[in-house]
């Protein structure tokens, strides 16, 4: 079974009846490994569509969870259950509950390393005080505002206050969490949260692939939030120095915020500064200083390294890229596409209104970026297949568009693989406006193909 991976959370959704015989058939270690490769740092089994399970049925998953957590530092557990199922799991694993239980996927995503929705007001309750505290700390670390109800009565009263909370957490349990370095995006900066003692383990817990992808799609400012770092050793020092050196190729800047040197040799700071890493006391010292942000490169996501031109290999593969895009949009809209014009030049968008865009990068044997510019109408139509209804919710459309671009990327990867060209794809990126896209792409030269779907114009741009 394949998992659906969204925002770093991979979810398997078996249906029906889980017992000792069926569970191991539903999900294999290979399935989980494949999910991890898609940059999932949380692996969950959804019980939403499971009507019956027994201890043997869950055991098969729990054993796999243990292996995966040890090997990949991944958060693992179950999600999407009702109170009855929650009670049953607690009964089965009374004193050995070392995986997580999230009442819903939405709640799980609050605890994921690559979370994106922040500043939520969250009411939470657990009869276990240590659990309440653990959840509150995690949520706070992830940029939310947790409010703990101390008792069931208090929870019942608080829950009545309509619209006071964005999310309510109950029947949730934090087992051993993954130890991946938490990542979030603020504007055009990527923020990594690190804590405690930094040693060689940082090489395992830091998602280097995500970092490289971010460089590839144009991020230039990377901030390590290090308020809770006690100390670091020479292995961590080497890691950060190398990270800074590799980022220099992209003109990227790495900063540390809140790192104290009480227990870390001051010479480490000098070494890191020599590598180009900068130090600040508070996050706001960077994020609220527009001039500084501009200097550090976060006001624009333009990818300096990629002042590169199209090469022959990329142009040779152009039909594959267009084919993948056209087939995906045709699949999503059930409409035929007609190619109208092809130009090699800087991206040119005459009408900027009522358009949204998305991009996905690829790297490996060849590298580059596909940019798709949709009239809002086509974007909505294409998203209907995934959403199931017409919507004007911009956030939902952009989210779904990211999924669509992911499909295009997946298709490109497959088509190229068939020809012996191996590439990996980056995370998709969406742009609410054409201006936001142009910040990244206006100086890039590439192939611009205009396509028409039922008389709606759609733009495809391939660049490096």
């Amino acid at each position, binding site marked *: 079974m394949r998992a659906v991976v969204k925002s770093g959370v991979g979810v398997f959704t078996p249906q029906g009846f889980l017992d000792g015989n069926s569970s191991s058939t539903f999900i294999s270690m290979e399935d989980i490994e494949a999910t991890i490769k898609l940059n999932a740092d949380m692996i969950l089994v959804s019980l939403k*569509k499971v009507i019956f399970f027994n201890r043997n049925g869950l055991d098969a998953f729990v054993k796999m969870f243990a292996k995966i957590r040890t090997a990949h530092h991944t958060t693992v557990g179950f999600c999407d259950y009702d109170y009855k199922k929650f009670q049953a799991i607690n009964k089965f694993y009374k004193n050995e509950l070392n995986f997580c239980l999230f009442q819903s996927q939405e709640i799980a995503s609050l605890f994921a390393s690559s979370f994106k929705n922040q500043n939520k007001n969250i009411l939470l309750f657990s009869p276990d005080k240590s659990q309440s505290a653990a959840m509150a700390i995690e949520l706070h670390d992830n940029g939310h505002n947790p409010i703990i109800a101390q008792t069931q009565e208090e929870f019942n009263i608080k829950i009545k206050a309509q619209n006071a909370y964005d999310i309510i957490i109950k029947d949730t349990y934090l087992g051993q969490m993954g130890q991946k370095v938490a990542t979030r995006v603020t504007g055009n900066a990527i923020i990594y949260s690190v804590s405690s003692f930094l040693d060689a383990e940082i090489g395992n817990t830091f998602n280097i692939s995500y970092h490289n992808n971010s460089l590839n799609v144009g991020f230039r400012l990377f901030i390590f939030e290090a308020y809770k770092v006690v100390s670091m050793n020479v292995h961590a020092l080497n890691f950060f120095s190398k990270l800074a050196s590799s980022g220099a190729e992209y003109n990227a800047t790495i900063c540390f915020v809140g790192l104290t040197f009480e227990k870390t040799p001051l010479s480490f700071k000098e070494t890191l500064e020599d590598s180009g890493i900068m130090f600040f006391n508070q996050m706001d010292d960077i994020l609220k200083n527009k001039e500084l942000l501009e200097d550090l490169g976060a006001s624009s996501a333009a990818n300096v390294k990629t002042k590169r031109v199209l090469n022959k290999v990329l142009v040779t593969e152009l039909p594959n890229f267009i084919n993948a895009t056209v087939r995906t949009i045709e699949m999503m809209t059930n409409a035929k596409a007609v190619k109208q014009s092809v130009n090699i030049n800087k991206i040119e968008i005459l009408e900027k209104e009522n358009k949204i865009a998305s991009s996905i990068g690829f790297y490996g044997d060849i590298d580059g970026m596909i940019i798709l510019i949709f009239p809002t109408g086509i974007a909505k139509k294409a998203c209907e297949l995934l959403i199931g209804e017409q919507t004007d919710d911009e956030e939902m459309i952009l989210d779904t568009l990211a999924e669509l671009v992911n499909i295009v990327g997946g298709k490109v990867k497959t088509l190229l693989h068939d020809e012996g060209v191996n590439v990996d794809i980056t995370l998709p990126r969406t742009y609410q406006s054409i201006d936001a896209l142009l910040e990244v792409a206006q100086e890039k030269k590439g192939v611009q193909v205009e396509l028409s779907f039922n008389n709606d114009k759609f733009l495809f741009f391939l660049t490096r």
Partner: protein
Amino acid sequence: MITQDKIDGFIRKIPPSPKILKVTLMFLEKGELVKAAQIAKEDLALSAYLRVLVNKPIYGFKNQVNDISQIFGILGVARSQQAVYNYMITLLSPDKWKLFKLNKTSFENLQADLSANWHKILVYLNINDKDIGSSITLLPASVIVSEALFREHMDEVSLLRSVHAIDLNTILVRLCSIDLFDICEQISIKWEMSDNVALIIQASSGIKPTNDVTLNNLGKWMHLLLFYTLSKPNFIEAGLNDFIDFQIDYAQDVYDDFSKVMDL
């Protein structure tokens, strides 16, 4: 991906029920088992199918049964009709499966599992109705329809499902405003099956309850039975577990009784 034309083409290609089967069913309808068996014997493929079907372990017969008259005699009118309909459905199945990892035997096992357990359920519910007994035979047709429509689009489906949890039935509805169970209904009409068969099958999709309380209730049982069957390792491996969406809330209120019947 899939268009209305393609669906229309599939429906057009559904063959009318063969004459021998029509006559066999006519005699079964009248309760004339001996005459039905005599006609059925003329169709060697039907005879062979019936022998394989009733001798599967799930039917629970201690001794091998080979004679068609004996088979009809043991099964009785309702289950004989069900067995003939099961054979008719196999006429639609592909020679080689591509989307699902099935073959002739595993598809017949699916039919046998569903039919035998449906019989248990009807006994529990004290329902003795030939058409209701036969309604289960149309359920595996939804698997055949999925195979026929999606087999050339496996990569697209796979990519779509890698980013979004979406079942084949939902994809079909969103693309063409018609679902697998509507197509199954078309099959039942073409083969002149009773109207109730189509109603139960539609209800068993879990997304189209019927106003008839009894038939709707049977739809719930059938929906649950389908997922009980599709949770077995061989059918999970065949890729059948998530071809349609399990509507857990729809089937919830018959679950306790279901677990009694199935000894869960």
